[in-house]
C-alpha cells in the first residue's frame, strides 16, 4: 500500500492503518529496535510503542517519507529504553557502537547539555554532507541504525574487515573535522 493511503487510514482513525504500517514497515522497525535492544520482549514493546506514537502523532503530522518517520520513532524509543535498562542489560552491539561514537570525539570535548548535543549533531551533519555516498551509507547505518559490521559487510558486498577499516577511517575523519572546527571544551 502506498504511504499516502496508509496516512489516510491514520487520518480516518482506522485500525487498519496499524496493520498496513506493520505489513510495510514492520521488518524495518523491528530491525532498528533489535539493533539496539537485545531482549526480544523489549523489542516487541518498542515496536508496539512505535505504532502507538505513530497513531498519536498522525494526524496532525503528515510524514514524508513515512519509513524514516517510523524508524526515527523506533530508534528514539529503543535508545531511551536501552539507557534505562543499561545497568542490568548490556547489548554487546550497541555498547560497541557507543564506544565507537565516543572514540570519534576529540579528547577535551564535553557533551553534557542538550545544547551541546545539538551542536555536535550539527557538526556530524556537516561532516556527513562532505562524504561520498558509500561512506555516508556506512556511517549512518552503523551509528544511526546501529547495524552490525557483519550486516554492513553483507549489505555492501565487502568483507567485514574492510568495513572495520572504513569505519575506523571515517571516525578518524570525523574526529579531525571536529578538531578543525574548534569543537573543544
Amino acid at each position: 500500500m502506498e504511504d499516502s493511503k496508509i496516512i489516510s487510514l491514520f487520518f480516518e482513525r482506522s485500525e487498519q492503518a496499524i496493520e498496513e504500517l506493520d505489513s510495510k514497515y514492520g521488518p524495518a522497525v523491528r530491525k532498528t529496535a533489535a539493533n539496539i535492544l537485545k531482549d526480544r520482549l523489549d523489542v516487541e514493546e518498542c515496536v508496539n510503542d512505535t505504532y502507538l506514537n505513530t497513531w498519536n502523532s498522525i494526524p496532525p503530522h503528515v510524514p514524508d517519507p513515512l519509513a524514516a518517520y517510523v524508524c526515527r520513532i523506533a530508534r528514539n524509543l529503543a535508545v531511551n529504553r536501552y539507557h534505562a535498562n543499561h545497568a542490568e542489560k548490556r547489548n554487546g552491539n550497541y555498547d560497541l557502537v557507543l564506544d565507537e561514537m565516543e572514540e570519534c570525539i576529540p579528547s577535551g570535548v564535553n557533551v553534557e547539555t542538550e545544547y551541546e548535543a545539538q551542536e555536535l549533531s550539527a557538526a556530524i551533519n556537516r561532516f556527513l554532507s562532505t562524504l561520498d555516498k558509500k561512506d555516508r551509507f556506512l556511517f549512518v547505518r552503523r551509528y544511526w541504525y546501529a547495524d552490525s559490521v557483519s550486516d554492513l559487510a553483507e549489505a555492501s558486498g565487502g568483507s567485514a574487515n574492510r568495513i572495520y577499516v572504513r569505519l575506523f577511517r571515517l571516525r578518524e575523519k570525523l574526529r579531525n573535522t571536529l578538531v578543525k572546527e574548534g569543537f573543544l571544551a
Partner: protein
Amino acid sequence: MKRELLSKAFGNIDERYIVEAYRTVTGDASSSPERIVHMNNKRIITFALAAALLLALGITAYAVWSIHTVRQQELKTDLKIEENNVNSYTEYDIPDDQEGGLVLLSSVNDGDIQRVYVNISPVAEEAAAAFPKETSFSWSIDGTEIGGFAAPELPADLSVSGDEIREAVLRYAYDKETQTMTLECYIDLNFMEQAKASLGTDSLPLLVHMTVGQNETSTFGPVSLVRTEEQSRYFDFGHAVYHDAELEKDIEIAGLELTPFSAAWKVSYEGAESFHKPDADWNAYQPWSMLEDKVCIDSKIIFSDGSEFSTGGALTCPYENGTVNLHCGWGSAINIGDVQKIVLGDLVLWEAK
C-alpha cells in the same frame, strides 16, 4: 561525557541521510549503496515556485548573467585551476538570456567523483538561510533513479560550525540580489556510467532539487551534463620497500596514481590479500592498517618551489590485482605536473630526473 547525550547527538542525523541509508533495512541485503538513491520528494509546489518566480521578475538579465560569471571565476580561483594547470576541469558557456532555473558553471573530475558546480534561482533568502536545518539540496538524472546530494558551495579552506554555517552560506554561496544559490553536486562517476547505459546517451539530463521543510520541493533543470575528462599521472616506485621499525614490518609501495584532487597509493605486503577477504583476522590486520595510514599520511609530495603536500588518510582501501589501493581526496587542486620528489621518511620513492 554522558552516553545518553552522545546517543542523542548521533541520533539527530538529517532525515535525508536516514532515508538514503534506509532501503537495505527492508531486507534487500544485496543492495549496494549506489542503488539506494530514490528521489521521493520531487513534488513541485506550484505556488511556492510561482511566488519565487514573481520575486525574480524584478531582476535584470545582466545581474543574473553577472552572478554566473562571477561565481565561475571564484570557483576557478578557489579550486586553483589555472595556477596548477588542471585539465580535468570544464567551464560551461553561460546562457545570456536565462534569468532563472539551473545554470551549469563548471565541474572537475577527481578520479572517483565529478564535482559539478551549478547556480539555481530563484531561491528565497529565507530558504537559503534555513540550510541545513530546514532546507536541503539534491541532484538527479532525469529518467533514472540515480541521484545524490548537493550542498552550498563554500570556500575550500573555510571551516565553520553552528550558526556560522548560515552566515557563510548567505555570504559565499547566495546572492541576494538575484536570489541565486551556488551548489556543489557530488556525482559518482560510476553513477554517470550507469545513467549513460540506462539512457543510451553521453549527455545526461541533470536536475537539481531544493526541499524546504518536510514537503516543499522545487526542481530546477534539466541541463545537459557530460563527463569531464580525467587527468592523472602515475608514479612508478618499482619495488620500493618501507621498513617500519616500530611495527617491525615491511610494506612494498609500488606506485602512486595521482590526479589534481585525489590519489591512489598502491601497496602490497605479506598477507594483504587475506586481510581483504571475508572473515579476515581484524587483530592481525590492525598493524598493517596503521602502516597503510602511515604511507598515505606521512608520505610527502614535494614540488619545485619546495612546498610539501600530504594526501591525508585513505577512506577506502580495496584489494585489486595484487595490490591494496589506498584512495585519498582533497579540496583544491595540486599541480601533478610539478612533482619533483616523493618521500616517506628517509625513503625516496620517486625523484624527477
